[in-house]
């Protein structure tokens, strides 16, 4: 007779993952008192009621020229994604051979689209060039990485069957590219959906996409109009497979050129001054090393900002994990009751998850911010709900592909014994992939007034202190690359990720 092992003792993979997860949650709880989680508004419920009212009874009549906003949003997303793919593809071909290319791609994708937009705004103004560059540059880095990963998994059979002496180009065209074409295309499609969300967000810096009108409607309390705009956006995403059909795309791209409008006039001398002087600290340009120290010291609250960014990212990651664990059964067939009621329940669960994941996290945070006041609480909620719902959706789809060994178990038994042990490695891997994205979003949420790095980046741009803005952007990118490296180490290995969701 042997004694039963104690709490969490044992070497099984499930227990190892459980220990790791609990350690992460414990760290988060220990650090939680450091976060500013005050509730700063007196009566959030009335405001929430008005917002929900706006969502249920949208004021369609109040919209002015919504078609222009939609057309610009789609145009920017289309061309931004297309140009990103055009730049990313050649980079993907040399991705695994050059450390420089890998570093460059990691850097450009570590900076959020909106920060790129803030940077280009200084040079190209509120023009389509700013919007396109803001999407194209980070997407090139993302495409390079993901395409390279897909290309690496090309089946080798056809390649080995080619006659001796076949050239590299021909080999690639016939025996490699067609084999992965479907996966490349489906990832590009997914990225286009992300591009639509990013294009909406560009409204927050003043480009007249859907986000611009959404922001002002919310800010001025015109919730009926905001509701109508949100429904327009959900409709756009939900009907994507219909209007974004492969055959329609060339036509759409041509039409998009019209909406992107003429190129802005760029003053060459100003551009050169911006790149050669404004972006760099004056002491650095003057070769004054001692002055550089003083310049560094003049940046307000650098360390607290970094601390807040990392803390909020950790909280967001743990929050997403909890939300995903709670919400995935909503959309899974294993937990829906029998008959019509069950089907309805599952459809509603799905709809809720799709809405949560389609709403851009900045939008979500903005709404919570209006409700709860400018502390870390709304940011935390937004990050956890958006990312948690996204992961819950993928996990539910994974779960629906599994069949139960003991279908007669009750719901908690099904959850804890049948499904979770099989789903959890994948779920945790998704969370780890997502941690990098969450950090990038955390920095971004600073633009709403939460004291993360983004807040200081945004205000540096506002006060035209471009050297400081660039420095903070570099710090943000560095943090992002660091977190990416850490989470890659932490994530469960040998988990087949069927969805390239990051």
């Amino acid at each position: 007779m042997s004694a039963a092992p104690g709490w969490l003792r044992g070497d099984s993979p499930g227990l190892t993952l459980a220990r790791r997860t609990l350690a992460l949650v414990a760290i988060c709880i220990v650090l939680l008192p450091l976060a500013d989680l005050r509730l700063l508004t007196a009566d959030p419920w009335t405001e929430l009621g008005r917002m929900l009212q706006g969502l249920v009874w949208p004021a369609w009549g109040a919209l002015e020229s919504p078609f222009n906003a939609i057309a610009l949003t789609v145009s920017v997303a289309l061309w931004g994604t297309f140009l990103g793919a055009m730049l990313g593809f050649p980079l993907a071909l040399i991705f695994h051979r050059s450390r420089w290319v890998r570093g460059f791609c990691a850097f450009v994708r570590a900076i959020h689209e909106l920060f790129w937009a803030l940077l280009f705004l200084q040079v190209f103004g509120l023009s389509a060039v700013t919007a396109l560059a803001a999407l194209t540059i980070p997407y090139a880095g993302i495409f390079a990485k993901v395409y390279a990963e897909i290309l690496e998994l090309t089946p080798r059979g056809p390649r080995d069957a080619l006659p001796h002496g076949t050239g590299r180009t021909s080999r690639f065209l016939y025996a490699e590219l067609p084999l992965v074409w479907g996966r490349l295309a489906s990832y590009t499609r997914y990225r286009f959906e992300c591009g639509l969300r990013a294009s909406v967000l560009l409204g927050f810096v003043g480009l007249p996409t859907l986000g611009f009108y959404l922001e002002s409607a919310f800010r001025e309390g015109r919730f009926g109009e905001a509701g109508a705009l949100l429904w327009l956006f959900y409709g756009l995403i939900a009907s994507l497979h219909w209007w974004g059909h492969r055959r329609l795309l060339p036509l759409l791209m041509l039409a998009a050129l019209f909406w992107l409008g003429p190129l802005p006039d760029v003053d060459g001398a100003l551009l050169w001054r911006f790149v050669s002087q404004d972006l760099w600290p004056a002491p650095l340009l003057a070769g004054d090393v001692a002055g550089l120290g003083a310049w560094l010291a003049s940046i307000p609250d650098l360390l607290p900002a970094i601390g807040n960014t990392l803390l909020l990212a950790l909280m967001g990651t743990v929050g997403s994990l909890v939300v995903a664990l709670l919400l995935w059964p909503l959309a899974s067939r294993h937990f829906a009751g029998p008959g019509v009621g069950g089907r309805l329940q599952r459809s509603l669960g799905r709809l809720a998850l799709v809405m949560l994941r389609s709403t851009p996290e900045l939008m979500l945070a903005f709404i919570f911010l209006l409700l709860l006041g400018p502390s870390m609480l709304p940011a935390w909620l937004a990050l956890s709900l958006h990312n948690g719902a996204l992961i819950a959706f993928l996990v539910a789809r994974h779960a629906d592909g599994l069949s139960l060994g003991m279908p007669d178990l009750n719901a908690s038994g099904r959850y804890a014994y049948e499904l979770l042990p099989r789903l959890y490695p994948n779920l945790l891997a998704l969370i780890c992939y997502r941690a990098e994205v969450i950090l990038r979003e955390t920095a971004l949420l600073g633009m709403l007034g939460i004291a993360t790095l983004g807040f200081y980046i945004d205000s540096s741009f506002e006060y035209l202190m471009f050297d400081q803005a660039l420095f903070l952007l570099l710090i943000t990118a560095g943090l992002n690359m660091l977190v990416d490296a850490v989470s890659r180490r932490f994530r469960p290995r040998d988990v087949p990720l069927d969805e390239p969701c990051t």
Partner: protein
Amino acid sequence: MPLLSFEDLDLGHGAQVVLPQLSLSFEAGEHVALLGQSGAGKSTLLSEIRRRLASQAAWCPQGHGLVPLLSVYHNVYMGRLERHSALANLLNLLHPNRQAWPVVEALCDELGLEGLIRRPVAALSGGQRQRVAIARALYQARHVFLGDEPFASVDPHQALRLLEHIKRRHETSIVALHQHRLALQEFDRVIGLRDGGVILDAPTRKLDIAHLDALYPDAAQTEAGSETSSQARIGAS
């Protein structure tokens, strides 16, 4: 003057030797069947032969090695990919080459793929894919045919017809297969591999089914039994 010969050669993948101290030679003009259970080293031997013969040999790999998204025409065209420039190959993907099209079409008709030349390989049955793989090898137009189980997905009757096409177009052939009766009736020589060595190498006229069954560990199997088991194995894979 042999086409190819090995003296005391260790064959394998990297450090792992599959066929130690192998000595074999092949003559031009003979049709050789390679027999032995899966994992006996047939593929290892064939890939070494392919390496040595380089562009003298046409090659039909195990598991077809076809590209599902491309049409039958493009898959067959791949047999001569090295004889055109990269630009010509690129254009051919967009608009089929005028010289190549009728040749490929005739070849496909001959192998029983009438009317399928435009269809993507993904939409074909296992047996049809097998024929495309063979058509691609024939399109290479070489003296020697090397095949690694090229008849794995077709029935014995079709295998016989395909083999006739192969022999008509190639002076020499070296083919790994599991169909014992076909090996005895249609080939000049049988090489049997087992436990990392050649345990049988003889002209077919001196052999009968019992000799071939000895190549398998379960030697008591009858011919019918071994045929079904090989079919079952293919079905399962």
